């Protein structure tokens, strides 16, 4: 089906926006249905200073008006959405800083970690998949298989904690600190190792499947060596299913390496979100969830595009495997 690129693009954009809008309503509604009042959160520790209850009530009312919390919910939502779109993501209740500044402070660290972790995973997964798919069921395949199985079974927090203990004792690894090259290798490795098994398994399966197809046999019948058959014939079609998986893995790495960031005190956005959630820092939670959704949707779209480039056969086939 050939449609003008502009139409396709516009439709994709509209779909993306629709998903984002729905997500924003959900996020707003969910957060507002939470117990407790944002103002309580701000006043949380104030009791210790010695305020009387009437003082607290007075301050609470003032703050509510200040934050617009006395308005009807739909109005609050529209105002909030307008501010989100224009880049004013509100002020953190906890720190009093602009949420945008706080998030943007932390995004690079998360991004770098996600990219590095993903790179580790890709290298490991491709290597293992190539190794394992050489002789399906052979000894190498079995060893790789068992190793990945065992890795899947180790929860990432356990893996991270152990790695941190060992690295600290062995190399003087800095347990906490800024997002520097000296610190990234360990969480990147842990993340990468955690993502590798699923990735390599899909790649292995699709390599084996594509290798068994007639065209691969045909290539060899025409004199292509095993290596050439792999690289020039089999690899590209085999990549498609792994790409989908990889894209989703990447999206969740950027937004969600919460546990790893926590274990390694990595100053990223995942850890920040956890802190905000437990502190009921509503503007931060709202902004974070909307941003994470946007990112996931965008990465999904990006993966679609890349996949179309890598394998232009289109949806019919992608659907058959995915």
């Amino acid at each position, binding site marked *: 089906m050939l449609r003008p690129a502009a139409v396709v693009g516009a439709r994709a954009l509209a779909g993306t926006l629709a998903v984002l809008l729905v997500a924003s309503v959900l996020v707003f509604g969910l957060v507002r249905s939470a117990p407790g009042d944002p103002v309580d959160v701000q006043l949380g520790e104030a009791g210790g200073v010695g305020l009387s209850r009437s003082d607290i009530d007075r301050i609470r009312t003032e703050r509510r008006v200040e934050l617009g919390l006395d308005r009807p919910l739909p109005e609050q939502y529209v105002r909030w959405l307008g501010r989100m779109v224009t880049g004013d993501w509100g002020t953190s209740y906890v720190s009093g800083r602009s949420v945008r500044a706080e998030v943007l402070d932390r995004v690079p660290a998360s991004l770098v970690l996600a990219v590095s972790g993903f790179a580790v995973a890709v290298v490991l997964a491709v290597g293992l998949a190539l190794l394992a798919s050489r002789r399906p069921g052979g000894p190498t395949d079995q060893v790789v298989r068992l190793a990945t199985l065992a890795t899947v079974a180790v929860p990432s927090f356990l893996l991270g904690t152990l790695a941190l203990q060992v690295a600290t004792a062995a190399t003087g690894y800095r347990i906490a600190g800024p997002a520097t090259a000296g610190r990234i290798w360990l969480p990147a490795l842990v993340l990468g190792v955690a993502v590798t098994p699923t990735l390599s398994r899909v790649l292995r399966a699709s390599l084996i499947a594509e290798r068994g197809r007639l065209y691969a046999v045909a290539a060899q019948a025409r004199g292509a060596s095993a290596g050439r058959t792999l690289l020039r014939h089999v690899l590209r079609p085999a990549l498609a299913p792994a790409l989908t998986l990889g894209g989703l893995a990447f999206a969740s790495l950027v937004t969600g390496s919460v546990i790893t960031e926590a274990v390694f005190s990595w100053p990223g956005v995942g850890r920040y979100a*956890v802190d905000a959630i437990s502190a009921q820092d509503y503007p931060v939670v709202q902004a974070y969830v909307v941003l994470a*959704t946007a990112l996931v949707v965008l990465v999904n779209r990006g993966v679609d595009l890349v996949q179309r480039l890598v394998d232009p056969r289109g949806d019919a086939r992608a659907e058959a495997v995915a």
Partner: protein
Amino acid sequence: MRLLDSARAGAGTRLRERLRDRARPPGRALVVAGSVLLALVVLVVLVAPWIAPFDPAAQRVGPRLAPPEGEHWSGTDRFGRDTASRVLHGGRQTLLVTAATMAAVVAVGVVVGTVIGLAGPRGDDLGRRVVDTVVAFPAVIVILAFVGLRGPSLPAVLGGALLVWWAPFARLTRALVRAALAEPSAVTARALGASRLHLLRTEVRPRLVGPVGVLVAVETGQLIATVAGLSFLGMGAQPPDPEWGAMLADARGAALSSPHLVLGPGLAVLVTVLALTCVGEGLRDLLDRSTQVVRP
């Protein structure tokens, strides 16, 4: 993550036959080993009240932070509670609640996936987009947000899991339903006049059971690991519940001086997840289909 699954329904794949087929040893061995391990874990956990040497909540039944020796062969924690008893009792809760959650998740996912799979092209496109987004969404974040709203507890974690965990099942089910309906036998049945219900019952269901079973095994393992991870962050089970993740979190500070505190619950999580993963992987092998979800 979250993140995706692929499956094609196989015409005439019969698991029982594949299991009997001795020419495919790796899948068989994995399923058998995993099942035995899992059965063992379940058995031990079920009879925990009778075999656990102490009340898991009773403090100072022994010296505090005692190393594994004598009466407390697995050592005690810093409240002087018996580690083995806590690991055994903790499993009861973990396994029961996870199983219940998984049942709900699978039911929701399969129903949603079937509805989307039966829908027309527009409904399918919309449904697929929504499901894909939910699949890609980091489960941990959603669960944490939910926990933030409801307060940290095991039910809150599992409630949050319910919000997102259905999606991989819906995705898989949708793909399987569509693939099954495209099979020549389904097309022929339709042309002969079969109703949708009949198609779902005779054409779709048999092609669904295997791959969904694989996903259930793998995802249950992941759910247990995630619940443990969240308890580890202090978001899940609350003291003095002997949940494995919470025990691990509590033991983190003392990992070097009292390794037994980490070893017990750590091994419990590891063995359970490993058993489930083995079963899932083995079944996948036997079905010769790939189905998975990434959750870093």
